[in-house]
């Protein structure tokens, strides 16, 4: 859905049109879920539901365009996620988890879907393993496509802090990938190692 479409949906929702908020939910809920999976893991769907309930109650009072709404929505999601973490007294104790989604993929079992989801799962697992501020910055900036100012607004930080957190997160991610591959190469033996290095 384009930005114009989102603007139209937002206007419709503000006028009280159900179709407007339904379209917003269709477009933005997958992004919200993706972000929340990194922050609260298996509670992501519950927290997303709470986020949208609040959005549904307050959207008529929202002023701004679709881009602003997206930022506001992520802020709501983040605060609901923090509430959830506080309630459950933990901070991503099982960042590798994502087991609910894994179960779903296994249940449906089309091979392509499993491979695709496995790659996504690995990516989210690695991002979730970053320090929390870096993980959120990487998710919002590099995965969900918010700009620095928007990410800063969501996280309640200064743009400079967001830039640093994202940069450190990406660097650490790259190092982790390299280390993982190094371990794989060691397991595969010297011949494989040569191939990897000269590639």
């Amino acid at each position: 859905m384009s930005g114009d479409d989102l603007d139209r949906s937002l206007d419709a929702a503000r006028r009280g049109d159900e179709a407007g908020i339904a379209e917003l939910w269709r477009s933005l809920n997958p992004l919200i879920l993706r972000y929340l999976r990194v922050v609260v893991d298996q509670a992501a769907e519950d927290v997303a539901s709470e986020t949208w309930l609040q959005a549904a109650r307050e959207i008529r009072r929202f002023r701004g365009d679709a881009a602003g709404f997206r930022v506001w929505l992520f802020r709501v999601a983040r605060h609901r996620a923090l509430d959830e973490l506080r309630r459950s007294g933990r901070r991503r104790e099982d960042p590798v988890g994502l087991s609910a989604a894994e179960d779903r993929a296994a249940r449906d079992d089309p091979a392509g879907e499993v491979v695709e989801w496995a790659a996504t799962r690995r990516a989210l697992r690695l991002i979730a393993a970053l320090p929390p501020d870096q993980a959120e910055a990487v998710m919002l900036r590099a995965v969900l496509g918010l700009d620095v100012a928007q990410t800063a607004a969501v996280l309640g930080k200064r743009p400079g802090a967001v830039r640093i957190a994202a940069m450190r997160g990406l660097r650490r991610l790259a190092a982790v990938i390299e280390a993982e591959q190094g371990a794989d190469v060691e397991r595969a033996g010297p011949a494989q190692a040569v191939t990897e290095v000269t590639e």
Partner: protein
Amino acid sequence: MKRKRNRDLTDLLAAARAVPRNQDDLHGQSGRNDQDRQNGLDGLDGQAEHELAAILAAFNAAGSSPTAKTAPTTHTKPSQPPRLPARLPGRVPGRLLVRCAAACVLATGCAIVAATAGVLPSPVQQFAHKVLGGIGVPPPGTPTTVPNGGVTAWTTPTAAPTATPRLTANSRRTSPPPSPSASSAKLTALCTTVAEHGDPWRNAVSKEDRAVLADAAGGEPKVVAYCAALLAHPLNATATPSAIAATAIAVSPDPTEAHGNPHPPHTPDPHPTGH
């Protein structure tokens, strides 16, 4: 080496961005037709459908709340948004809460409408309109007037606008409604039964209740009309149908009062607990 490292990182981020084909993760991004799009429930699995229905219920309930209809026109600090109840020990799934919230919204919507706005859920309003449409009882979904100060209300099942009453020139002609009494409450209950059963209502009430209804209406043949008028204007339980109709006609509808300012000048706070 550095190039490879960057490529690996790019691939990883692309994988994180990838939209999975798994419908559960998409929550409703499948193909859909226009009719489904209008309903807002197209192409969704059962779980997502429930979730969207709950969101739409909350959306509609918020639209009919006093704050939404009579939003302030001056810059004010946004009030703290309502919150879902805190989870009970043992972790109640949030989705269950969402569904319960939706059910409560739907269940209480009708009661709130009838109790505070003086209008009725659509089926009953339809009944009232069918019987007394000629003397001013409107069909469901149209603005109607209630004898409590000229506030306009919309007779939709979940709408319960409770705009601050504002006397208009026309509304000043209406007299204050009589206080509801035990007998009027009973009459309202009996009339609800009559409305539910229609013509064969006599079989649905006891002999004593038939007599009560007949007394109030001025004869059994007039009971249906009386009840229709009473249900359309429940605060006038002691009045006759003609008096009720006259009251309805005396007050002119003012739809703008019920809608308030659609664009209040502030952005809601995303967090009610002050993060």
